[in-house]
């Protein structure tokens, strides 16, 4: 009993720390990557007493982003504007970050790890209907930004908060439709079972990944997920040229850092969901619980521990890949106009999602449910 509890706690902490680390690294990648894209030098100044320089290492700006910046942010004055709702103003950033982080609890980061006689399922929690859990936590994510905008007692912040709320509930509909169509196709609401169903191959060589049976849902989920993270091209709630910084105009220091962290954690979340639903989660092509079975018929037996670790590595590699795609898109596309954003959401993605759902349901009934 005690050891089970300990294992659960370790799994939860490891997943959260992985997400937070990845979010921090994404911030660095965003700064340095955008500099590369735009032919700038980017972050390259901070170093600890020039140690790296003396050793001849290239200064890639990791110190700026991962050390100097957080220290600066957390030692800044924590400003609360006059007339603001002090309690909600302090609560809002955490209300924004918390639902994103708890969503990762149900994401399977691997299959089963066998240590001795103990079989450890590599996910922090497994409610039977984990797809619904994901939708529920995405739904409560709105409150943080909405209240952050409202509690600041600032017109720009309030406008940003209203925009953020409208945008998030509009695009959550699309996310819901994409997830439901995928659920109908797999016939299960459980993310771990979805990953298992994506094992195996078609035609002897093609991995059975969800992208091949639900390509439309994949596009819907990625697009709407990017809109959920409120970044360019969907950064209307923050629109610097119109709203200063939108809902976090009146935030400084650590609280602003938490809001920024939320954006990056949401990028990781979208990548994780896309990976789990459409790219096999922890599945490695041609890798089965007893080792590799290559298309040609070659077989390479592997012990369980290696298979489990390969699965975890594959999962995070796929996740990082989709994070990278999202950052590339963010630095490539210009911002939408507000009416374009709403038209895309309600007149483009939602009808597409509904049509996809209807077609999926017809096909599943015609082929015969799994």
């Amino acid at each position, binding site marked *: 009993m005690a050891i089970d509890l300990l294992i659960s706690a370790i799994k939860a902490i490891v997943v959260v720390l992985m997400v937070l680390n990845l979010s921090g690294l994404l911030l660095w990648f965003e700064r340095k990557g955008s500099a590369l894209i735009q032919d700038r030098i980017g972050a390259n100044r901070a170093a600890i007493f020039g140690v790296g320089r003396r050793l001849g290492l290239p200064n890639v700006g990791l110190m700026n982003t991962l050390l100097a910046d957080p220290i600066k942010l957390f030692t800044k004055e924590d400003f609360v504007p006059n*007339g603001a*709702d002090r309690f*909600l103003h302090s609560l809002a950033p955490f209300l924004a970050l918390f639902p994103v982080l708890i969503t990762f609890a149900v994401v399977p980061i691997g299959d089963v790890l066998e240590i001795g006689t103990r079989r450890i399922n590599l996910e922090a929690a497994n*409610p*039977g*209907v984990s797809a*619904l*859990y994901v*939708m*529920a936590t*995405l*739904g*409560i994510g*709105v*409150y943080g930004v*909405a*209240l952050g905008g*409202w509690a600041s*007692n600032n*017109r720009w912040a*309030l406008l940003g908060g*209203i925009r953020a*709320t*409208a945008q998030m*509930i509009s695009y*959550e509909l699309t996310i819901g439709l994409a997830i439901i169509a995928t659920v109908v196709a797999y016939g299960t*609401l459980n993310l771990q079972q979805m990953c298992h169903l994506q094992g195996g191959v078609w035609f002897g060589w093609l991995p059975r990944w969800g992208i091949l049976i639900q390509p439309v849902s994949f596009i819907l989920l990625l697009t709407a997920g990017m809109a959920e993270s409120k970044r360019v091209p969907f950064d209307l709630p923050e629109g610097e040229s119109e709203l200063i910084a939108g809902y976090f105009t009146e935030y400084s220091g650590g609280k602003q850092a938490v809001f920024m962290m939320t954006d990056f954690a949401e990028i990781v979340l979208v990548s994780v969901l896309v990976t789990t639903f459409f790219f096999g989660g922890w599945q490695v092509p041609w890798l089965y619980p007893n080792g590799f079975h290559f298309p040609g018929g070659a077989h390479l037996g592997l012990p369980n521990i290696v298979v489990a670790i390969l699965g975890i590595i594959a999962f995070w590699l796929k996740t990082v890949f989709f994070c990278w795609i999202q950052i590339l898109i963010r630095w490539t596309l210009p911002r939408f106009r507000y009416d374009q954003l709403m038209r895309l959401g309600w007149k483009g993605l939602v009808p597409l999602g509904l049509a996809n759902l209807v077609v999926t349901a017809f096909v599943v009934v015609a082929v015969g449910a799994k």
Partner: protein
Amino acid sequence: MPLWLFIFLAVIAICGAFGVILQRNPVHCLLALALTLIDVGVLFVGLGAETLGFLQIIIYVGAIMVLFLFVIWLLNLQIEPAPNAHLALKFFGSIGAAALAAELSVFFFNAQPVSGVATIPGTYGSVESLARMLFSDYLVAFEVTSILLLAAVAGAIALARRMTGAALTRTPVEGEGVVRARESGS
């Protein structure tokens, strides 16, 4: 679900419910209500009805409460003043509260004592049993509800379209510039 967890969640739910009626600021009331609804959803999950619990959070907290938030913002609701001291209101309010309290206490004291832990059927609260109820046992009621909702949606769109012309030409009323309800004295 262990008893201590149930009691913990139940206390939070009741505190949230008290928060809804005791707070003056409408946004704080709304947050207290959202807390209560999330908490009841978690209680559902803990009692084995996972689908129902998550649906409760998705629908009530994720959608309906957010719409309430919009309404509070757009209608520019202010801090509620002290309760209106109208005598008739107090009179009928007391009668209603007393009747409700009497009803609750009658039910409470006549309730069957818990004789043991009931076993839950395996399909209880699952998606399959919920879907079977909605789409076969109570299909007619379900469809009638959906038609009702459709009518409400159509009505809302009709009202919104008619309002646009009027809203553009009307004169602003006093105090309309205040965007956010602000507590006096803070």
